[in-house]
């Protein structure tokens, strides 16, 4: 065997001693950090930088105004209710899709992702046309005294719409994994259906449910496109926080817009963190997977 092809190259041996033989760490890591910094991190940090420039008093003045408070309350409240509705119907839909065979199941499974795929503006005008007083659904609700379009209720409907897939899709794999064991546990221990659900299934899917809830909530808090059409955007009543940011921007009130944005970011990060901790705690306790 010849070694002549393998002339010694005293090239940087330190580099070769790096922790992995796979090449490209510097290049890919460098590009990742650079890109993420330029597109996401530095501009996002700008919000906090700008907000810091306003000072605590300046921030407080903006955020404590009645209109901003109402908008924040609506955005977070509707998102919470929407995520809550999904936390009830999401598991049900996931269960039906995982558990049962019926005609059209594949279409149903695919359509669950519609809120991901359908542009929010399209969803917005479609929901509005459905729930308006003369719409397909609105015409039945209105005589009962339920007004959805152009009220906070409409905001909740939109929040539910966009959040649904988050809950269903995080639950689906967990249910698929554990389905068989549930059945066997129930059968072998003689538990009735209700006991199986509350004692076995719910604890097992709880971490995933919390994850889905958190994702749905986070998405709904910041949602704009699918809400503004159906909300009616009445100040103090059905005006969401993201819209308020746009209004302030259009008035060239950059400081005000930034203050609202920073508040939203901090609030939703804090809530996400709290839910993550809660989820970690649940997972430790019940050993389920997220």
């Amino acid at each position, binding site marked *: 065997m010849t070694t002549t092809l393998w002339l010694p190259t005293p090239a940087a041996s330190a580099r070769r001693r790096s922790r992995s033989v796979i090449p490209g760490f510097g290049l890919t890591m460098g590009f990742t950090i650079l890109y993420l910094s330029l*597109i996401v991190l530095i501009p996002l940090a700008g919000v906090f930088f700008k907000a810091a420039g306003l000072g605590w008093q300046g921030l407080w003045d903006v955020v404590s105004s009645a209109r901003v408070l109402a908008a924040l309350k609506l955005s977070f409240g509707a998102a919470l209710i929407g995520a809550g509705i999904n936390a009830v119907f999401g598991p049900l839909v996931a269960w039906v899709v995982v558990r049962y065979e019926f005609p059209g199941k594949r279409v149903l499974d695919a359509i669950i992702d519609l809120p991901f795929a359908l*542009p929010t503006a399209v969803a917005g005008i479609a929901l509005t046309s459905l729930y308006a007083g003369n719409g397909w659904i609105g015409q039945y609700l209105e005589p009962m005294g339920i007004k959805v379009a152009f009220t906070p209720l409409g905001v909740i409907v939109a929040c539910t719409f966009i959040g649904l897939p988050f809950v269903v899709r995080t639950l689906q794999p967990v249910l698929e994994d554990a389905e068989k064991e549930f059945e066997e546990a129930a059968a072998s221990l003689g538990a009735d259906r209700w006991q199986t659900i509350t004692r076995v299934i719910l604890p097992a899917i709880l971490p995933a449910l919390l994850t889905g809830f958190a994702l749905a909530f986070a998405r709904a808090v910041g949602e704009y496109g699918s809400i503004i059409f159906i909300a009616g955007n009445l100040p103090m009543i059905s005006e969401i926080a993201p819209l308020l940011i746009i209004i302030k921007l259009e008035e060239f009130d950059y400081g005000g817009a930034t203050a609202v944005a920073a508040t939203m970011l901090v609030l939703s990060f804090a809530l996400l963190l709290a839910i993550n901790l809660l989820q970690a705690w649940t997972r430790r306790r019940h050993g389920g997977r997220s």
Partner: protein
Amino acid sequence: MRNSLIVVALLFLSSFLLLPLIAVFTEAFRNGIQTYVQALSDPDAQAAIRLTLIAAGIAVPLNLVFGVCAAWAVTKFEFRGKSLLVSLIDLPFSVSPVIAGLIYVLVFGAQGWLGPWLDAQGIKIIFAIPGIVLATLFVTVPFIARELIPLMQEQGTEHEQAALTLGANGWQTFWHVTLPNIRWGLLYGVLLCNARAMGEFGAVSVVSGHIRGLTNTMPLHVEILYNEYQFSAAFAVASLLAGLALVTLGLKSWLEWRHGESLAATRRY
């Protein structure tokens, strides 16, 4: 039990998901095919379609490169702060699109930090196409990376190591070994990324300035038409986007059905 659960699920899904979809197409054709064609052949509508294609045409490839690089760095190497990096990649998902638009206004806008300097150079970013592209980039950053990271994590590095022992260099290893292993996951990510890029509304709305024929994307054009009470035209343009959504969903289901084993094991969003 079984049937009632199915019925409840179906009712819930149809009222929340299916009906809006049907409504879009019904409203689009309410005033006949004539109005529909007219709405789409309108020069402003054409310009909006073009701009949407441009924005997605830039944002998707850039995020593709980013997604592959990020997934390579995260899955092929061990380093401190990895989970922090993964969280940062996901960050745009938890930021309101409106805030995504706002941050670029703060940086590049007329009153922004770089605004006066850009103005002096004659470069327009906000209320122009670059701003729209940037906003689209921001909201679609995580899509491809998020699909690839769990997939490549699962696949490990043994194939790459095998290629290296056989004498392949880094690029050959990626091109001939890694890429074929992740191609379906990559396509899946591109599909979702593209759907979001073409449909993005909030972020783009902030930076666009809504100049008809110049800085209006399709979703923005839908909004303008709707606010002008041209409902049929608005729904006509919207039906194109809804069609895009349906194609995306169809391809996505096909990928999951046909190549499910080559996609990330758990579907996360």
